[in-house]
């Protein structure tokens, strides 16, 4: 108990602050990534040019294969060349968003593509307009798949966000790096455990959201 008390006395406040920064980075990165990937995924699913689809998906996939550390380095370099600020939240968010895009994009695309064509045809035949088909049929039916993509993305982003300390964007990475540099276990733990807990909590909340948003008729096992 004494050990824990001392630990929190020393690091409690900083843990809170870094967690807050971490949450901020992750949340806004996810928000922006979803806002980009969701409409883009819908557009790709409707796109008839197969070549264009594979190019966009390919680019997103390539971004994913770049090691996260290298991606951050590239962003900083590009920002430097463009005379933009290379330190702080903005370049960090750009890197996180790029990294979070692919799972959401891919799942939105496949989610909408896997909707039974017969259902779409009936919707058309009954006189739904294209936007009605999208919002009343395609999105509700592909929601579980899209949400799965968002969850994968969120868990990754929380992990990658620990690297944002390198460009001065704060977050739990600060504690981890300090533990590494000064060889202090308590800093390392103070950065790692909350990051892991955040990932679990995010995933849990999104799972709840997914269940709440998923239309009742699609839930397995009925009611």
């Amino acid at each position, binding site marked *: 108990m004494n050990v824990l008390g001392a630990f929190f006395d020393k690091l409690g406040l900083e843990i809170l602050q870094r967690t807050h920064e971490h949450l901020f980075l992750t949340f806004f990165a996810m928000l922006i990534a979803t806002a980009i990937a969701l409409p883009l995924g819908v557009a790709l699913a409707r796109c008839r040019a197969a070549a264009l689809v594979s190019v966009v998906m390919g680019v997103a996939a390539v971004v994913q294969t770049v090691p996260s550390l290298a991606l951050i380095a590239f962003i900083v370099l590009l920002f430097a060349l463009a005379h933009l600020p290379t330190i702080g939240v903005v370049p960090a968010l750009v890197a996180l968003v790029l990294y979070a895009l692919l799972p959401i994009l891919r799942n939105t695309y496949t989610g909408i593509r896997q909707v*039974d064509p*017969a*259902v779409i*045809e*009936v*919707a*058309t*035949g*009954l*006189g*739904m*307009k294209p936007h*009605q088909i999208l919002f009343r*049929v395609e999105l*509700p*039916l592909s929601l579980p798949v899209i949400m799965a993509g968002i969850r994968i993305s969120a868990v990754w982003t929380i992990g990658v966000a620990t690297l944002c300390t390198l460009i001065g964007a704060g977050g739990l990475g600060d504690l981890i790096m300090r533990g590494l540099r000064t060889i202090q276990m308590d800093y390392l733990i103070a950065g790692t455990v909350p990051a892991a807990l955040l990932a679990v909590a995010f995933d849990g909340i999104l799972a709840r959201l997914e269940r709440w948003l998923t*239309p*009742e*008729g*699609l839930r397995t096992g*009925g009611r």
Partner: protein
Amino acid sequence: MIRFENVGKRFPGGVDAVVDLTLAVVPGETLVLLGTSGSGKTTTMKMVNRLIEPTSGRILVDGTDVMRLDPIALRRKIGYAIQHIGLFPHMTVAENVTVVPRLLGWTGERIASRADEMLSLVGLEPGAFRDRYPTQLSGGQQQRVGVARALAADPPIVLMDEPFGALDPITRDQLQNEFLDLESEIQKTVVFVTHDVFEAVKMGDRIALLDGGRLQQLAAPAELVENPANEFVDQFLGEQRFQLALVTRTLESILPGDEGEPVDGTTDSGPCLRARDSLITALDRFKQSRRDVLPVVRRGRPVGRLAKRQLLQAITQVLDESGGSA
């Protein structure tokens, strides 16, 4: 009501799905588009509500070229049911049924009462089914919901693309019969696509037999079966001609005119035959009633008696005829 004038559909790549099709669907009738896959029957049907657009000729609905109508408004006025059922899995039964009324912006109250009304119409108890989801229904129940959805906004025209195709034979037969009853009540103009000649003969007032995108024959079922217009029609009916004739030929063809003595009142409540019964239905009635002679009624009035022996003679005659023409 629906008129095809020299309609053609050439798909990109040069495939002609429909060639120079001219036919009119009479208001209130059920016109069956019959043919094998690739015959152009489904393409023909889908051109009515512009799911597919013709590349030549024109299609008139109530005198207006469909290409000059707003497709959304056109489709909402035409009921649509398909083979793969196509219920929206994320919507309840009631929501599925009332898709079109909701698109049309009916009031909530009217929508709710319409849902119940339609479910009762297709033989589903509203209280038990309205809040269920499609996955919780059997195939037959789903198809009933599909039919209810097609009829929900009371469209004057209904398009049905093999609506009973995915069902087992017994359920299919039951739904066909119910739809016939329903159809005689609500009097819709129905365009019904099928590849099953027995279904065509059963459901259709007239049958349009298509092959390779061309109309081969347009006739009432009995006419189609007894007087095939060309070699193709003859071959299409093929081996089934005998069975089809038993289904399409009615007792009218063998009734001894009006000379039969009036039937006395005592037999009125017992089993009887109707003049418009098919030979096969009549045979069934003899079997069920275990009698050798049954009274025959035409539009509720007794017109004579028929002996089982006479019926069997007629059936033998059909067999001879279809054997002779094969």
